[in-house]
């Protein structure tokens, strides 16, 4: 109440009254958060953009080289490969996790106690630290015939697969792990969406004698559109900046076959000490992320307006 009284006074900016004690209060509460965000988020971002225009040389002083870092990064064939891998991994992982998450939500929707238990168990991959998940999958992908997945393949009469050591397969092995991590997460969002669907619509649809497929297509899907959009937004951002999954599972190998944009930038910055090039690569990723976020958000708003 008091805050609304002081707000117009502050807007007029009449000398001392602008420094009214009440007007300062919200800023005191915001200060810690803003300070931390400024120092550890926005300052590094600005610094990254700044450094991307320099040849960073410790002890010799940085040299302004304009867009050279960007040119170097974008023409580097390992970065070009990494773009492809990031896109394949990001899109494959997102689509897979969305479809599987939706299927899981349809399967595990309901109020029975056993279903609650199942949902708790199925959600485990999403709460487990990615590094632990990486160790788990490295073991399941054990490349000899007595590895967990390989012995399963043997059971079906299939040969041994070098999941992580074969450059043709490693990227897809990583994708499967990504789907495994994110499908349960998407499931929860879809479950929330499904819970909000008007049950009488199902009843009406059943009276009209529509098939299960038609009911899902014309009743369920339109109703959970908001949930779908959120899942899509999250997947877009996640897909591009994928790092930990790849880093802990394959480290980018074998022979760079699973190198994604961020593992490449990490190697450039921390192993080869090319701070300028790595910064340029990060700025490119940042721009693409922002662009995609805005795009997906516009799509979402348009969908809501309709």
């Amino acid at each position, binding site marked *: 109440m008091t805050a609304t009284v002081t707000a117009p006074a*502050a807007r007029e900016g009449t000398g001392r009254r602008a420094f009214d004690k009440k007007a300062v*209060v*919200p*800023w005191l*509460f*915001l200060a*810690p*958060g*803003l300070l*931390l*965000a400024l120092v*550890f*988020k*926005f300052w*590094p971002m600005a*610094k990254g953009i700044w450094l991307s225009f320099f040849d960073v040389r410790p002890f010799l002083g940085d040299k302004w080289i304009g867009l050279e870092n960007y040119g170097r990064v974008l023409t580097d064939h390992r970065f070009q490969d990494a773009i492809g891998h990031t896109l394949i991994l990001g899109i494959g992982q997102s689509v897979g996790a969305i479809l599987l998450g939706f299927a899981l939500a*349809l*399967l595990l*929707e*309901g*109020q029975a106690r056993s279903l609650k238990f*199942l*949902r*708790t*168990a*199925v959600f*485990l*991959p999403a*709460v*487990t*630290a990615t*590094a*632990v998940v990486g160790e788990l999958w*490295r*073991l*399941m992908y*054990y490349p000899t015939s*007595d590895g*967990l997945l390989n012995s399963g393949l043997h059971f079906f009469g299939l040969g041994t697969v070098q999941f992580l050591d074969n450059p043709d397969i490693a990227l897809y092995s990583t994708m499967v792990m990504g789907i*495994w991590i994110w499908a349960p*997460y998407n499931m*929860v*969002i879809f*479950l*929330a969406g499904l*819970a*909000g*669907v008007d*049950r009488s619509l*199902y009843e009406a649809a059943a009276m009209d004698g529509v098939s*299960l497929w038609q009911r899902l297509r014309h009743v369920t899907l339109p109703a959970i559109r908001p949930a779908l959009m*959120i899942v899509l*937004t999250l997947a877009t951002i996640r897909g591009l900046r994928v*790092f930990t999954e790849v880093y*802990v599972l394959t480290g980018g190998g074998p022979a760079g076959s699973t190198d994604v944009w*961020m593992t490449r*930038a990490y190697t450039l*910055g921390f192993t080869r000490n090319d701070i300028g090039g790595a910064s340029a690569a*990060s700025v490119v990723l940042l721009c693409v992320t*922002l662009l995609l976020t805005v795009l997906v958000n516009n799509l979402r708003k348009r969908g809501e307006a309709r």
Partner: protein
Amino acid sequence: MSAPVIDPVRPAAPDTPAGRTTKAQRTTPARFDTAVGWNDRPGLAWALRILLCLIALAVFAAPFLTIFSGAFTTNPSGSSLSFLPHDSTLLNFRVAGERGIWDYLGNSLVIAGGGLLLQLVVCTLAAYALARHRFRGQALIMMLFMMTLMLPEEVIAIPLSLVLGDVPVVHLDLKGTVWGVILPLGAWGFSVMMLTEFMRDIPAEIEEAARLDGVGELRMLWQIILPLCKPALGVAGVLGFIMIWDQYLLPLIASKDPTDYTVTVALSILRTDPEVGSGVVLAGAVIALIPSLIVYLLLQRSLVTGIAAGATKG
């Protein structure tokens, strides 16, 4: 503005035509309770659902059993891996202990505890200002906090590592200290937004009555607002813990040498150590897994609610 919090565990109370259907659902799950129309009567669909549920369980939960069984098996590799250990032993944990796994766990616990405390305090303060005050630039501040979500550690890793080595203005070297991990986690846009939405729904009358009694700002937050926010704080706490425990790149770039690593990052040291087998790595994985598992199992309901709330509000 704010959508209702939907608990997927207890679906759609407001949307069902009151009375009849709700009561019917409680006794025998109605056919239109779910999108697919599962029912409890034994039959082909019922059998199919059970089969699919078993597959889901095998795919998503059973692999965790291999971590535990492997950790308690003498030298697990390939064929000796199973869902249950054949010859249980604690040797792996002893070897992992010799490699300093408990120190890494200590680092992790300090970072998770301190980071979560800082995060909750910082985000609660910010949310209080955003939800219960009106001031110039409010929309801009909200946008800044939202942007922190779009600036994950991965994207700013290289410059952040430089900043951690030499914090601007004060010129502190945070590398090798737990502060290097804790401080960057302080302002988490997700918590700020979720708490703001929740605090906005608290009726103004409560606040006005307290103001008439001469309650100051800090007491207002501590004694009036916070007790009403307990569910939201729970959600922020669980999600924050899981998020901090999952950090990988940040502890990696904030460390000076491997002794500063968290337990999740330290798994890579165990793995590349030629003298230890996969059993020791799995013992480390178990140790890294258990704290998040405990938090999840204790508070999974509020976690699920929180993801749903974050989703419907996002």
